[in-house]
């Protein structure tokens, strides 16, 4: 993931140590000095995200990575970055919460990532990879989309993806970074008017207009950018909705269910914001029910319900606190649900 960021043109990493994302920082600390980049261990998560704000103001590709409690601290800066229309990449390798929680994998920051990465009316792009290869690929996408839409992007991973190893292939392209950033505060060299990176608008009319413009951009993103994987959905009776590492367990369970004659399928949102509503809506016409499977007490299930809009029942199954659901548990839930549905 770190190497993918570097290949995407990232030369500035600001972070603070926290389990379980220390691998990214350690890799950056090793690589950055060799390629003329910056690795800086900040005094706090708050300082790190504000260093990101500074570097993003300068127009460079920059990233920080952390894990759940650290992301909570960063939310102030993320709000300012979004309010100043700056692009950057934030990695959250989620662990169990609330509070100090635990250090085992979790997906309980879904609400935070999609609804509340800080105060105010705003969104960030949220990508949820399910394999190490996809994590690499999405780093490229995240940088490109962040630059295109001038907003923060987050890779929402979990402790399982954060620590596992799988073979990956790096796309051979070096990032072209062709997006111009005329707004960047690089010093005007006496050649242009001065640029201001700012999120303060004391006049409520001006602020409203700013926010409304930003939400028009969000509408375009919701139209163009949702990504989802559909697996055996076409003839499915039950569609499981699941993201990230959990979706791999769900896929195993779907395969087992199929082997037993239960027509199960899966929709895996790859972008959590924008949420792939259309994929869910389409399936809602043909399936008999949905089940959201998450490593939380049920967060994404809200978005599934909103998309299904009452057309079909939406069930939930989850484990939390750092427990990874097993394929057998998920299969049991499928059997129970389908037994009940018949």
């Amino acid at each position, binding site marked *: 993931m770190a190497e993918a960021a570097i290949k995407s043109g990232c030369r500035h990493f600001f972070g603070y140590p926290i389990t379980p994302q220390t691998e990214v920082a350690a890799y950056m600390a090793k690589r950055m000095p060799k390629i003329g980049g910056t690795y800086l261990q900040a005094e706090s998560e708050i300082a790190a995200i504000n260093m990101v704000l500074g570097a993003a103001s300068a127009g460079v590709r920059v990233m920080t990575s952390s894990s759940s409690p650290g992301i909570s601290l960063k939310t102030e800066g993320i709000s300012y970055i979004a309010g100043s229309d700056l692009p950057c990449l934030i990695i959250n390798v989620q662990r169990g919460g609330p509070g100090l929680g635990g250090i*085992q*994998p979790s997906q309980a920051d879904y609400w935070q990532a999609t609804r509340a990465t800080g105060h105010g009316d705003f969104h960030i792009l949220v990508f949820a990879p399910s*394999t190490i290869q996809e994590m690499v690929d999405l780093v490229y996408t995240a940088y490109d989309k962040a630059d295109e839409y001038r907003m923060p992007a987050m890779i929402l991973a979990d*402790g*399982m993806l954060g*620590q*596992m*190893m*799988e*073979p990956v292939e790096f796309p051979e392209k070096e990032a072209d970074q062709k997006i111009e950033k005329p707004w960047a505060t690089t010093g005007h060299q006496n050649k242009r008017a001065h640029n201001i990176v700012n999120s303060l608008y004391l006049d409520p009319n001006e602020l409203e207009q700013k926010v409304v413009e930003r939400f028009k951009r969000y509408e375009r993103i919701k139209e163009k950018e949702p990504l989802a994987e559909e697996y055996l959905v076409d003839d499915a009776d039950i569609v499981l909705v699941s993201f990230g*590492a959990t979706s*791999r*367990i769900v*896929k*195993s369970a779907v*395969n087992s269910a199929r082997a037993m004659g239960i027509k199960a399928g899966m929709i895996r949102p790859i972008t959590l914001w924008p949420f792939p509503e259309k994929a869910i809506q389409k399936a809602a016409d043909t399936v008999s029910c949905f089940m959201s499977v998450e490593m939380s007490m049920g967060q994404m299930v809200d978005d599934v319900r909103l998309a299904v809009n009452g057309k079909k029942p939406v069930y939930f199954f989850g484990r939390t606190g750092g*427990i*990874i659901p*097993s*394929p*057998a548990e998920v299969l049991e839930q499928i059997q129970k649900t389908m037994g009940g549905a018949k």
Partner: protein
Amino acid sequence: MALKNFLLAGFGGQGILFSGKVIAYSGLMDGKEVSWLPSYGPEMRGGTANCSVCISDEPIGSPLVLSPDVLMAMNLQSFDKFIDSVAPGGVAVIDCTLIDKKSSRTDITAIYVPATALASENDLQGLANIILIGAILKHTGFADFEAVKKAIDKCVPPKKRHLIEANLRAIELGMQYE
């Protein structure tokens, strides 16, 4: 072989995670899909280290191994905890220097190798884990021997290159043990 799920378990410091890497890289050298997941989930208790490895012809679903085809156990706690989870028809490779218990299961193959004792007798201290990989290789043929050699070459860090030869001897020792 469509799918082989490995669960390696023991104390931290016995080279459990390293063993997992060697197995995963062996699969990779053979052109398979692989995953390696260090001690995670409810089983992480009591200072034990364990590691899930999957080798498959297909993309890997769940990387977390709950019902292993192959169990490598290097302490009593791990033996007690995981022996019943081995898939029927599976293989359990047990370091009987450290575990003086036998499995009562008849639907799995239990292999007892005094790996820790063998390691000290043969001047291979700290390589009991690799001896056990040799035994696993012998009884499951999870990868080509050449692939395992390449994997060891890949996994041993630059600072420890001098240990490659000992690692290879350990593998062979495990393969020869009757």
